[in-house]
């Protein structure tokens, strides 16, 4: 990648990429705030079902259950939260690559490949849950075209899912670099930036899970 930060004078002493990612995250906040607000504004305004939290019988007599499956989504939320923990461990492993490892436990904790894989797999598992959720909703009669709930729900969670997907691709890229030449303390900043993004996406999910799933 580009020349290490040490060669460049900066006003703050921080690498420019670190400042840019924070600016990016600030901007992304406004994106998700707009999406979440629209979901909340449209909550309860759908004329036809299915609805998120209550059952609905259509005029033609068809019965639809409340659509959100909170236990299943709680499980996927747990997986995503754990991925943030793995990400922290991955960053620590990269930062401490050159510290000698004596015990087996230190070697496990110090394996950047292990923790990057764990993060990526947890992210992919979350996406798998989302794919399952989306298909089962469609089977139960809710698509992006059905009603305002469907439109705003799929768009909001779809955007979040797209962000997770981008994050997984980013992690796999870091893994590829790790396999090719090994990630060391010089790469810590690159991993740090990926981690900031990953944690941000995770935090957004906590907001979505609370506002969309838990609050009735």
């Amino acid at each position, binding site marked *: 990648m580009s020349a290490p930060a040490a060669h460049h004078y900066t*006003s703050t002493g921080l690498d*420019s990429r670190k400042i840019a990612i924070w600016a990016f995250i600030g901007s992304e906040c406004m*994106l998700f705030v*707009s999406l979440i607000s629209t979901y909340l504004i449209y909550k309860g*305004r*759908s004329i036809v079902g299915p609805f998120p939290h209550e059952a609905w019988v259509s005029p033609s007599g068809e019965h639809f259950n409340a659509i959100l499956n909170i236990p299943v989504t709680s499980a996927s939320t747990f997986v995503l939260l754990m991925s943030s923990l793995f990400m922290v461990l991955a960053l620590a492993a990269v930062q401490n690559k050159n510290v000698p490892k004596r015990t087996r436990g230190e070697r496990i904790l110090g394996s950047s490949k292990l923790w990057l894989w764990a993060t990526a797999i947890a992210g992919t598992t979350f996406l798998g849950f989302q794919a399952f959720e989306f298909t089962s909703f469609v089977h139960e009669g809710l698509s*992006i075209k059905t009603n305002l709930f469907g439109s705003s729900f799929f768009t909001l969670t779809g955007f979040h899912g797209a962000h997770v997907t981008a994050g997984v691709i980013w992690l796999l890229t870091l893994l590829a670099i790790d396999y090719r030449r090994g990630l060391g303390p010089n790469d810590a900043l690159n991993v740090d930036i990926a981690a900031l993004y990953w944690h941000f996406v995770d935090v957004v999910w906590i907001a979505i899970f609370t506002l969309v799933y838990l609050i009735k």
Partner: protein
Amino acid sequence: MATTAVPTPAAPRAASTYDENSGLWSWLATVDHKRIGVLYLFTALSFFIVGGLEAVIIRAQLQGPNGHLVSAETYNQLFTMHGTTMVFLVIMPLSAAFFNFLIPLQIGARDVAFPRLNAFSYWVYLFGGLFITLPIFFHVAPNGGWFGYAPLTTRAFSPGINIDFWVIGLQILGISSLAAAFNFITTIINLRAPGMTLMRMPMFTWMSFVVQFLIILAFPVITVALVFLLFDRFFGTQFYEIAAGADPLLWQHLFWIFGHPEVYILILPAFGLVSEIIPTFSKKPLFGYPVMVYSGMLIGLLGFGVWAHHMFAVGMGPIGDSVFSLATMLIGIPTGVKIFNWIGTMAQGHLRFTTAMLFAIGLVALFTIGGISGVMHSSPPADLQQTDSYFIVAHFHYVLFGGSIMGIFGGIYHYFPKMTGRLMDEKLGKIHFWLNFIAMNLTFFPMHFSGMLGMPRRIYTYDSGQGWDTFNLISSIGAYMLVVSSALFAYNFMRSRKKGEIAGSNPWDAGTLEWSIPSPAPEYNFATIPQVSSRYPLWEGNEKDAESARINSQEGKTAEDLHIILPYSTIKPLIVAASLVFMFCGLITSKALLFVGAAMMVVTLYSWLLSPLEPEHH
């Protein structure tokens, strides 16, 4: 970014990428912020011609009652594209031209933080601009107004391809603005020369800094509004489907939460330019510098809390109306502070009425008129009389033409020597100014009256006998005069590039860092990174300032002589930008194209990110 103080072995490939070729390829592959600034300038001025011609056709149509030069449908496309072009393709990119060219020079940096991302922003702007502009030549241009109110712009009411171009085009242009904003925020925070504290930054850099924050916080909101519209139009979602229970005001709220900060995105850079010009030609430091900084920040902050004053007519009720009305009046205070500070700067100064200064004073005068009519319709009862009438058209042309464009013209005259090494002709410049000033008032002042007499915006023709005829005729004559004055500017601009008087490093005897280096600015900007101890280092700096200014004013040195490492030129940002636009085209044409574009983008993006920015340091 090694300074000359530390002798480093020359990197053989570093400098050659710039100097030795100036052909087409060097422009396509450039990552130099100054060249990108020049590209922005030329492109935006070209779009200015397009947007201006659209305005002329509009004025020709309205010159007299019952005009039928163009059909109602064509007229809709014309006013939509006039607004869209001037906002997104002219004023914003003209400001971006100055962000690019000036910010690194003003803060003492060799380039922006991410030179290749900067090139990417420009190419996305160019391709997105073409995407949204070309349809008018095939009579399928967007026709829903620059504000694109949904549900009018949903498929049910606008079935044609016209709005598709608008929705996708704005989405593309948003990517350009956002990428540039991340870049400039980082540049200003992180690449200031030693001693260039925040409160020593030139006012243009300060106002640009505020604008970048407005961009990163406002653009995501319109991105979401456009995504909803895009999904409604292409995938059958119901965000703007009133029959499905959708809120008819959703678009208006989202659009104006973006749209009002956008107004300040358009004006603050011009304020910044004027804040450079007026002190220079008054030979006095900017009056009340800290207050100017704080008022700029306050304008930006309050700008997020006034969006619904664009929506008084929808009936929000007394509480909503009062809150937004008060917040709007409040914005008048920091704006007024700026006006007074410019006047305070001029007071008792040694004034020199160069063309740039005339345009700067023109901004102060004309923006004040637009500002005052703005305060008038911050009051909902008054607004209900004025909204959707030509009074509003008069108002926003006073702030955007009288404000932004006048300030930017001033900036072009002021900084032309730094870009080209030559001065623009002052005599022609002054004729341009006076012609422009008179024509501008002739065009837009009568619109206050035609508006007050009830002439609605956006009508394509009107009957006689309503008292509007004379005012419209005067407006149209003014518009034709603006064409003449703009042509004069174009002539002066093109001619002075080759034949203008040689400028020298500091033709205006200005005080800020960009004037310490040769004109045109060398590719490395500063031979040595300056040490800054004052707001106007060339006026009031100590020996350190003088020493770095002396080194930096030396002409004829190449980056190689000075052992300065510059980034490689690369075409990759252009290819990524082209792939991105290609991908968006796929939405309109075929899904296959969408995937091809996306694949191209990913591949070229990886190739960009995995290639080094500049030669290794030794």
